[in-house]
């Protein structure tokens, strides 16, 4: 068993090593002095962070509700009415399944679906409202959502949030709910219980969900390609830089962009691990 794990570890290391061997340091330096590459690095960092923050904002309360609406809780609250109990269980499973759809859908399908959604009257009105908002906020260059920077964030968020919700749900499911029940008897309302008792215990899970959402957003490609396009210096993120370079026969450029992508991902993963460790030392578990 450990041998298989070892082989997988070797595979990952090999993938990184061959990339580093293929491109020289001068290639990397040259790429980093290219303003288009620098733009895509900045845009990737900004959009990934925004998508991850949005994902956590949605995932924490959603994961909590899904975890606490388990079989026991439903029975505790609706145990006296079996038909209502069954309906609640069914709705819970339905919501759970719908939230898993972005995980199982092929990425291109997510992009196409987003594109179609923003062709509907509702989507168009959201597009117009977004354009007005950005004009008012002093960014007249952002003309709505589709094929603009907000499209990148929305495409990343659509997939990343599903992973974050799943992580937060598992986190809250592993947390004993009895302290929360005791907090209720002490006079705390539901939100207070969530905020003061449940959430501090979910700190490691929240960091893990944020990291997952961030990493997922960084590697997102298909939905961005379809929904945001690959306009250089406009909607080009690192994953699309890899694609564009490869598409134009610049394999070395594609490998260098991949190496930058890997380096950024490793820095964030290490920083997250350190944050988790410092949280543990501070008494959070």
């Amino acid at each position, binding site marked *: 068993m450990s041998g298989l794990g070892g082989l997988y570890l070797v595979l990952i290391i090999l993938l990184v090593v061959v990339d580093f061997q293929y491109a020289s340091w001068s290639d990397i330096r040259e790429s980093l002095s290219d303003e288009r590459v620098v733009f895509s690095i900045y845009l990737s960092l900004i959009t990934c962070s925004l998508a991850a923050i949005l994902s956590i904002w949605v995932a924490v309360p959603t994961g909590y509700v899904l975890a606490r609406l388990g079989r026991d809780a439903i029975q*505790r609250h609706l145990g006296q009415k079996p038909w209502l109990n069954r309906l609640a269980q069914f709705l819970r499973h339905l919501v759970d399944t719908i939230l898993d759809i972005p995980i199982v859908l092929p990425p291109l399908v997510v992009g196409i679906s987003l594109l179609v959604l923003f062709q509907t009257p509702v989507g168009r009105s959201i597009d117009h409202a977004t354009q007005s908002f950005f004009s008012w906020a002093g960014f007249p260059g952002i003309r709505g959502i589709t094929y603009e920077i907000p499209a990148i964030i929305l495409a990343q968020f659509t997939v990343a949030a599903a992973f974050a919700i799943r992580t937060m749900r598992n986190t809250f499911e592993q947390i004993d709910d009895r302290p929360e029940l005791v*907090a209720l*008897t002490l006079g705390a309302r539901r939100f207070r219980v969530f905020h003061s008792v449940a959430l501090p215990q979910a700190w490691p899970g929240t960091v893990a969900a944020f990291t997952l959402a961030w990493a997922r957003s960084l590697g997102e490609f298909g939905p961005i390609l379809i929904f945001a396009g690959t306009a250089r210096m406009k909607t080009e993120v690192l994953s699309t830089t890899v694609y564009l370079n490869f598409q134009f026969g610049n394999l070395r450029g594609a490998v260098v962009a991949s190496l930058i992508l890997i380096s950024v991902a490793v820095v964030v993963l290490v920083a997250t691990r350190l944050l988790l460790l410092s949280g543990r030392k501070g008494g959070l578990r």
Partner: protein
Amino acid sequence: MIRISELAIGQGDFRLEDVNLSLPDQCYAILMGPTGCGKTTLIEAICGLRPICNGSIYLGNHNVTNQAAFDRNVGYVPQDSVLFPTMRIDHQIEFALVVRKMAKNDRRQRVAELADLLGIGNILKRFPQGLSGGERQRVALARALAFRPQLLCLDEPLSALDASTKSQISSLLKRVHAQEKVTVLHITHNPTEAVELGTIVFRMVDQKIVQTSS
């Protein structure tokens, strides 16, 4: 007076029917019964943590049957203390007072008073990890008493303790009851505890409650 009449609780296939119980003010009531007879279910229903099918619960003149747990003014100490894992001990004790927006000085005074009564002054700045069973039970008691509840429900508070700690906590419960003047409902299946602590003893027989001594 705490009055429970014709209470019915359903939990899956398990049902408690027609439960009646009257507790005089400031009594120390013991409720005995074998494991699995529904003692914890009953205490959770009294605390508002479990819905009831039928019947009523009165705390004094207030009908709290349909009130949420956070509005009931019932203190609850679960079987294994169940402290908040990420909260410092002094913050756990003042939690109910913070929720009630009590002034900071009054909160500190109440925490100090309880810490003194329960002998936990030395652990107030610690987190629950690493506390002994006896210390955890004292903290859980302080936390439940902080807001001066009308009724204090104790779910087998001595069952997980070793003999010497059990005797310490037992004397402490007597002292707390005398000093805080709170009505206590204490669940146990240990007759010695009942004799030692109870001013009134009930027994659950065939899912009905009968008074055995007072």
